[in-house]
């Protein structure tokens, strides 16, 4: 079991009353699964993704990622977990501007003490770029790439540290339908190779690429 969430709660103190963005969520994701988390805005799907991504800490409940109990870790320890266990893909790509595709991809290795350095690092980055079909765009900066290409660079970056879990937050939100189909097919290919993917989306046709859908409403999993 890669993700094991039990009775997870995440509350925000809004003045006098507590607002529960997650109100008792239980979720299990096995290795090799491809899950789409769906729901309207305010349903708690982003908060859940943040907690799964170790960017946010739950108020109560338990969360184990790849067998590691994450709740109660400090910020430095959470950063280490994110670095080793999770690859992030964002709606707005979040590539560093005026930085080449290769350097962007190498970024996660910078914070990985066990990562290769020098030529081995470049080789791995170039390899990943070739895998996402951008082997000839190694030294291009984000402004020289299309949206779909930028997202592929971001996927290569997410894969850099060989994480057991790929987390995508509306990965196709900024892309046209062709690039969307492209990216989702690539996700499926990765999944077939055994990569676990958890993706948040509100688009039904994007979610249809996943093996399993989790629907959320008012901080709870409803289906």
């Amino acid at each position, binding site marked *: 079991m890669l993700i094991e969430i039990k009775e997870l709660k995440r509350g925000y103190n809004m003045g006098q009353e507590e607002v529960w963005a997650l109100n008792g969520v239980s979720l299990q994701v096995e290795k090799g699964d491809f899950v789409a988390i769906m729901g309207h805005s305010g349903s708690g799907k982003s908060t859940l993704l943040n907690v799964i991504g170790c*960017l946010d800490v739950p108020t109560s409940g338990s969360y184990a990622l790849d067998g590691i109990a994450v709740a109660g870790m400090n910020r*430095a320890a959470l*950063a*280490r977990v*994110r670095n080793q266990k999770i690859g*992030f893909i964002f709606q707005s790509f*979040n590539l*560093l501007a005026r*930085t080449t595709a290769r350097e962007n991809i190498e970024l996660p290795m910078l914070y990985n003490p066990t990562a290769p350095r020098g030529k081995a690092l470049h080789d791995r980055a170039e390899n990943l770029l070739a895998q996402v079909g951008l082997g000839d765009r190694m030294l291009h900066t984000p402004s020289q790439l299309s949206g779909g290409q930028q997202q592929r660079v971001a996927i290569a970056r997410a894969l850099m540290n060989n994480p057991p879990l790929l987390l995508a937050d509306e990965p196709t939100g900024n892309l046209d339908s062709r690039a969307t189909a492209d990216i989702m097919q690539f996700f499926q290919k990765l999944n077939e190779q055994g990569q676990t993917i958890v993706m948040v989306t509100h688009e039904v046709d994007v979610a249809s690429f996943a093996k399993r859908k989790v629907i959320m409403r008012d901080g709870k999993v409803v289906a």
Partner: protein
Amino acid sequence: MNGLMIFKVAMRALLRNKVRSILTALGIIVGIAAVIAVVAIGEGASTSMKAQISSMGDNMIIVFGGSMKKGGVHGGSGGYQTLMGEDADAMFRDYPELIKAYTPLVRSGGQAIFQEKNWSTQIQGVKPEFVAVRKWDVSSGVFFTESDMRTGARVCVVGQTIVDNLFDGLDPIGETFRIKNMPFKVLGVLSKKGTTSMGQDQDDIIIMPLTTVSRVLRRGSFNNVDQLLFSIYSMDQLKETKRVLSDLLRQRHRLGPTVEDDFTIIDMTEISDMLTSVSSMMTILMAVVASISLLVGGIGIMNIMLVSVTERTREIGLRMAIGAAPIAILLQFLTEAAVLSTMGGILGIILGVAGAYIVGDLNKWPIYVTPISVVISFGFSGFVGIFFGFYPALRASRLNPIDCLRYE
């Protein structure tokens, strides 16, 4: 992340904004350049002053008539005619083991006239031992002799400025010029001493036998002199010599135990201390002004780093998401600030040294760049970067990654 990689990341971030990086460092560049230049000019002045003082004489002690306040100008000479040539003779007779050479000195002035040229200058009357006492000999011709002294001969040696202005730079040896309608023959030209750092031209001088100046020019009583110059064998005996000299003078001048000295004894170390205290005070003052500009430069760095942290909020969020611990973010921004200010420091040192030499060259000032000022400036610029970069870096490291990633 090891140190080298942190440095590389910082360099990359700074190079992404070259113009801004340079402008940010400008405060530090100017501040450090100012410190380096000011200290180099100040040190150059005081070094050359020390060199001049030591060239003024061979382990010299000067006695002025009248009293002189330390740190002020002496008002004694001319005012109090208490010293006699015989005082110096007696000192040499009683303490030959201390005194190597000596000469009394009388001062006068006048308008020297040669053909259609004239030049107002100072005239000093001394004994031939002056050459040994002041370590100042003629560069051409000869100095006057003991027999010129005895006869009060109307002969002299002149400084280079006199040669330039009165004789049009031509060889004056053997020529005769007039002062107060009396003819004086030039025997020799003194070697060039140059201008003191206080702006006094040491070569604007005519030196004559003591007797000539007192009898012929001043027409005063023969025995009164303005100064006594002694050259002692060793500076180790300075204290002792001054003590016995003072005792001897008090005895010869018949001063009772309660009466103040009617003379002042100073040595070159006192003059040197006085001059260096003035110049080091100036240096400190200028360094303080320059440090304030460094402070302003540091605040400039802090300001830009704060802007940079805000501007790169998303980048910070991304770095945290992919595994940067808060300490890594802190170190990244701290290194950027430190690199910015030390690079500024290095540029400032180069500019400061170059500036000091250019200014020194234009004004004919001596320049001395002390290694310690370079080391301190470099260290200080690094310190400024770390000090003023810490707060922005700390702020960056405390940001919440979720908020950062959502930041527009």
